[in-house]
């Protein structure tokens, strides 16, 4: 394995020198932050504060770029990944992003995390015309190329996901009475809107009556026990669980404890076996449904797949301090892979315009660790790279896929 990598390095390096000696670099075009030797990429992450669990994503990305650099960089240029801690506070994000764009002169912003934090810089980066890509938030507002041509998300958006759950619930549960537990924030609202849209499409104008209870919680709440009791008491037979990992685990455990067994839909944000299902208890989680787009790393079924093995080898070599059961390491890894690929495609034209152009021309990109059949596609009018998900159900100790790939349209 290592031998092979080294040979590829040598080839890459040789290629790099060849190009330079021919003088092709003379034609290279550079925007801010790019040069013959370096490409500067900016990023903000909540390494501290309430959302610090997501910091794993940033560490994985940094580890990946470290590997790229040691293997010779992208087209001979090293990636300088500037990842700063915004503590999930929007004003801090604004300050840091301005630092990255104006002082550090980054070529682009990559995988900035959090809906509110990205909303705070949305207008600014579009005025400044800085690529703001592979945003680490599933809000649907990142797919609006007409108004905001410089911002693009990555993962399947929450809205579509919610819609898919609603459709599935209506199709499979007889006389559905729905109970919703949702985090009182932007993510929760997006998931709720999509779900309601799905209900409306299926039930007509009386769709709101099918929701018998909708309760919220705050991230500062110690437990959601009281809310789960309220949902059970409402007589709901469908449980739409829109929570972040810790609360998801609490809700699953509590509903099993009180003997409430509805059809349960758990949002993808919390669909990690290692961080949610295992702590909540497998015996409490049987039959829970989610919409997946990544391979679940704790699922033995994928443990023979080449992309899993490659990921695992990478984790052990380049990200050894990280936890092997945290799926955030996969999100960070594939984000960095796509970023590297975009930069590679930019060739020697490292201008902001070209970065955006390349980002908006993904054609059936196959990305490691995505579920079979899911490919990334974008165009200047389609800013949603991943749009397909596959429903999956907890069966034993892992997610079992069922049905076909689903998109918003189907």
């Amino acid at each position, binding site marked *: 394995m290592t031998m092979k990598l080294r040979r590829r390095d040598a080839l890459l390096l040789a290629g790099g020198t060849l190009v330079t000696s021919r003088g092709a670099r003379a034609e290279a075009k550079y925007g801010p932050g790019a040069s013959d030797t370096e490409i500067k990429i900016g990023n903000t992450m909540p390494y501290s504060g309430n959302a610090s669990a997501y910091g794993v994503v940033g560490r994985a990305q940094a580890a990946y770029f470290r590997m790229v650099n040691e293997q010779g960089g992208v087209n001979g240029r090293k990636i300088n990944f500037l990842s700063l801690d915004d503590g999930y506070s929007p004003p801090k994000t*604004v300050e840091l992003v*301005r630092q990255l764009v*104006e*002082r550090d002169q980054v070529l682009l912003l990559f995988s900035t995390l959090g809906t509110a934090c990205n909303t*705070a810089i949305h207008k600014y980066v579009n005025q400044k015309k800085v690529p703001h890509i592979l945003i680490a938030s599933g809000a649907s507002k990142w797919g609006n190329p007409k108004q905001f041509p410089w911002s693009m998300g990555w993962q399947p958006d929450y809205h579509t996901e919610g819609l898919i759950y609603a459709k599935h619930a209506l199709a499979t549960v007889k006389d559905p009475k729905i109970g919703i537990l949702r985090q*009182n924030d932007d993510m929760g609202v997006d998931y709720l809107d999509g779900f309601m849209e799905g209900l409306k499409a299926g039930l007509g104008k009386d769709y709101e009556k099918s929701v018998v209870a909708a309760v919220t919680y705050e991230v500062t709440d110690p437990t959601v026990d009281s809310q789960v009791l309220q949902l059970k008491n409402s007589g709901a037979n469908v449980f739409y669980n829109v929570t972040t990992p810790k609360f998801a685990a609490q809700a699953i455990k509590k509903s099993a404890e009180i003997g409430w067994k509805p059809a349960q839909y758990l949002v993808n944000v919390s669909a990690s076996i290692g961080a949610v299902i295992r702590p909540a208890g497998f015996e409490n989680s049987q039959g829970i449904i989610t919409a997946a787009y990544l391979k679940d790393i704790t699922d033995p079924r994928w443990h023979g797949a080449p992309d899993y093995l490659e990921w695992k080898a990478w984790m052990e070599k380049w990200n050894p301090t990280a936890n092997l059961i945290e799926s955030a390491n996969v999100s960070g890894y594939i984000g960095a892979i796509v970023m590297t690929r975009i930069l590679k495609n930019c060739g020697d034209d490292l201008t902001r315009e070209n970065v955006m152009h390349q980002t908006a021309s993904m054609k059936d990109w196959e990305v490691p660790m995505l579920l079979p059949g899911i490919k990334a596609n974008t165009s200047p009018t389609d800013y949603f790279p991943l749009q397909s998900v596959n429903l999956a159900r907890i069966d034993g100790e892992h997610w079992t896929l069922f049905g076909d790939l689903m998109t918003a349209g189907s």
Partner: protein
Amino acid sequence: MAAITNSWATRRGIGALAILFWLAMAALPLLGKIYPSESFDYYMFMGQSMMVYAIAVLGLNLLTGFNGQISLGHGAFFALGAYVTAILMNDGNWPYWTTLPVVAIVCFGAGFLFGFPALKLESHYLALATFTLAIAVPQILKHKAIAGWTGGVAGLVLEKPDAPFGLPLSPDQWLFYFCLIVAMVLFWAAFNMLRGRSGRAMMAIRDHGMAAGTMGIDTSLYKTITFGISALYTGLAGALSAITVAYVAPDSFALPLSIAFLVGLVVGGISSLSGCLIGGIFLVLVQNWSQSLSDWMKSTFDLRYDVPSWAIYGVLLLLLMYVMPTGVAGGCGRLYRFITQRRAR
């Protein structure tokens, strides 16, 4: 302690120093004209943030430092000011600067009203009551009943103003001046208030409430009004923050903000005006410092783990408190007296 701080607030000669300081501040944006650079606007923005925090810390200082009422909830008034500005700009299409008087009135009213229950509560109990405020306000802002105005969880995105009258300034340079003017007016007003009769009354209540009462000071009135003025200052800081950041959201005003004000206050110097400025600067810079220190440690000692920047922040705070338990301003004051007394001997 009271003696130290009184002399800081009222010592002769400090006026000249202050004027020099503000003049230097006013000259700063012009540097950008002499040495134009892409990153200049970013530094201007940092300067705005520092002034915003300095004003907020000043508000807290008036209450805690000069009047002895502790507050762990000034983030609430900051949020109130920010949202009043944002809603007026967004729904009412008011020009940004016209919102400031409204913010002043609303926040003074809110603070004054909150001052009444605060009268009944002392030290830890007041800390809890204000803590409640800090927790309640972001949740109320999200509530569906008022989401039509506040934008709910998504918040409000605002327009960043340009320089008026065709002045040859970038928006950030102009906003720097705007914040500077507001800060100057507010610091000047605070200076005058503290120097005069009402300031002495405020501090007398802090030092010995009962004795102040027997001297004929209406302690309840002074305490509630101080609460109002304190909220007014912090609210105006919030308004400036909304204008400069051009975005408000409930997430921006969570509990850590209120805690940050308290840290800024203590680090800068309790009951010291210059300390408020130091506190504001500290709050903006400290995170960047701890982050760069963390990066430096990682690369120098070749560590496997990232040293978490918040641990470094904590250690920095502890060290600061060891060296200067009365804050940077208090510490400098002590140093200054130490030197002058030695010379006198």
